[in-house]
């Protein structure tokens, strides 16, 4: 029998949504959490002093002194200045073998922070490539790209399939059957934030253009990716391996170069500084501007030579219109602008995306429960649903516990987070298979709630944050507690059997 267009779209939406939905939930949830990755890194490192009024000039000097002492022969230095989101000084240097060393320092004293943690970047790694090292292979990135495409496909096919989304735009009937309630939630979260969902899926793909079109740059630029990057990114790009370090020659204090650069980019606007071949006569100092008050992915960059002469001044305002448009659109996804207000709105809208996918997976199960309950394939789908949604939520919060409970200096500490994440997903699946999906949903949501509310209480840190009036850390505490309360309410709601909740509703 010939299928209609709507039936074809329904098939596509259902199966594409379900299979990729399991992956998409991880991507969307971790992407949502990533909005606060700086704050999470700060929260996870109690050694960072709170409530500091950081002086950028002093911090730059501290970073420079550290690098002069620890990486005098390095080919590349990077100093990232502290911010109110993460008041810690970050320094990196690359040795002759090309190995990058990373350290975090107290921005006033220069004391090293011993705790090595991925911090909030753990969620970013999961979001952009399922925590698979892109240096090893691009499998994670490719899967995330496909997932992004599936999200776009599901958005478009969803508009065709869910015909009444505009007429029933604000309709949510929690007292209806599970199928109808979840469908209402799916439609509500989908249609209200449809521009956000499509924008995030599109810009996510847009950012990974190099993965989708891998041959374009090598063909058009005759195999020269650096040439492409110079033109596309508009930035000075120098492969250290192609250039020999020059003769030894002193480089002046970095503050001198930064002062000259800030005459162009604005006083006190420096975010980070690169020094290529420091202490050599071919040294280049690159000063990058912060992005906070501009909707732009690219940043102003001023490159100076050793004598302080400006080699290149790459200012966004002077770039071509296509370049500015590209930078503008990409920045919608790569949120570095707007401050706390915008981050909170992105966080809430991000939860709407994650909720949309969770509700969609639940609709699939609820719709088929009456006819398929007891069948092996359906039980597998229900168990995977629990793991891919509730299990992922547990694993995301458990990461905070693992980070805080694992002693500093334990060998392999950096990889414990992802290992525990995977173990929790496995345990969640087994639990769902053994307990049945309804009980597993309730128990795992309740566990997420307990972990969220309990995390700020670990080592009594919430009291320390209150005592030191550390607003950034207290905000993380508050967000965790609020999230925990929401999960607790969801668990409480799900605990009652469906029959007990049912109330006749209009069809």
């Amino acid at each position, binding site marked *: 029998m010939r299928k209609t267009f709507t039936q074809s779209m329904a098939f596509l939406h259902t199966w594409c949504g379900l299979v990729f939905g399991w992956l998409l939930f991880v991507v969307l949830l971790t992407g949502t959490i990533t909005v606060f990755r700086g704050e999470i890194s700060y929260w996870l490192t109690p050694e960072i002093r709170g409530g500091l009024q950081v002086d950028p000039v002093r911090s730059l000097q501290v970073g420079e002194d550290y690098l002069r002492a620890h990486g005098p022969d390095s080919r590349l230095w990077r100093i990232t200045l502290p911010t109110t989101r993460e008041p810690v000084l970050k320094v990196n240097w690359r040795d002759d073998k090309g190995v990058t060393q990373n350290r975090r320092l107290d921005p006033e004293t220069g004391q090293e922070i011993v705790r090595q943690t991925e911090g909030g970047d753990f969620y970013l790694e999961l979001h952009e490539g399922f925590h698979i090292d892109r240096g090893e292979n691009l499998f994670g990135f490719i899967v995330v790209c496909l997932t992004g495409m599936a999200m776009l496909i599901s958005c478009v096919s969803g508009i065709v399939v869910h015909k009444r989304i505009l007429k029933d*735009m*604000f*309709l949510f009937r929690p007292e209806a059957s599970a199928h109808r309630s979840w469908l209402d939630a799916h439609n509500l979260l989908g249609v*209200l934030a449809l521009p956000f969902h499509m924008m995030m899926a599109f810009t996510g793909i847009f950012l990974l253009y190099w993965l989708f079109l891998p041959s374009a740059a090598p063909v058009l630029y005759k195999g020269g990716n650096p040439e492409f990057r110079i033109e596309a990114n508009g930035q000075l790009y120098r492969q250290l391996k192609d250039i020999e370090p020059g003769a030894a020659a002193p480089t002046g204090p970095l503050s001198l170069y930064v002062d000259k650069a800030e005459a162009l980019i604005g006083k006190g606007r420096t975010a980070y500084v690169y020094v290529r071949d420091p202490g050599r006569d071919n040294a280049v100092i690159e000063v990058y501007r912060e992005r906070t008050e501009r909707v732009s992915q690219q940043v102003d960059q001023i490159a100076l030579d050793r004598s302080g002469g400006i080699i290149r001044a790459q200012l966004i305002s002077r770039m071509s219109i296509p370049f500015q448009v590209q930078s503008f659109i990409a920045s919608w996804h790569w949120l570095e602008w707007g401050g706390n207000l915008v981050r909170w709105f992105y966080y809430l809208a991000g939860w709407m995306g994650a909720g949309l996918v969770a509700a969609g997976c639940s609709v699939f199960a609820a719709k088929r429960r009456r006819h398929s309950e007891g069948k092996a394939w359906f039980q597998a789908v229900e168990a995977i649903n629990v793991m891919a949604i509730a299990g992922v939520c547990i694993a995301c919060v458990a990461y905070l516990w693992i980070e805080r409970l694992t002693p500093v200096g334990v060998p392999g500490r950096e990889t414990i987070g992802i290992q525990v994440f995977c173990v929790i997903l496995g345990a969640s699946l087994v639990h769902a298979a053994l307990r049945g999906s309804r009980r597993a949903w309730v128990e795992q949501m309740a566990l997420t709630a307990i972990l969220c509310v309990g995390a700020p209480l670990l080592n009594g840190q919430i009291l320390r944050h209150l005592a030191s009036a550390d607003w950034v850390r207290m905000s993380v505490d508050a967000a965790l507690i609020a999230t925990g309360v929401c999960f607790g309410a969801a668990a409480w709601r799900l605990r009652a059997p469906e029959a007990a909740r049912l109330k006749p509703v209009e069809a």
Partner: protein
Amino acid sequence: MGVLVSLVLTFLALGLFAVAMARHQRYALGRVLSSRTVRLLRVAAWLLLAAAPLPWMAERGALMSLVTWLFCGLPVMGLAVAAALTKKGRS
């Protein structure tokens, strides 16, 4: 303050849109409004929606505010309207 005014205007605009829809009228109000009232509600909703981002833009800059309002402020306030309607429908 401008952000708050924007959010309130957005909430009101979306609320009026919701009340202008027959399904929501039956669910939340228990009756259907006349077509003249519905038309008036829709006009008022569009006007409010057009005005809603302006205070935000005046306070925080046009580009940044418009992107945040369109992609995030609008859906979050839509969710608040849905929550209010659900509460009203159940009461």
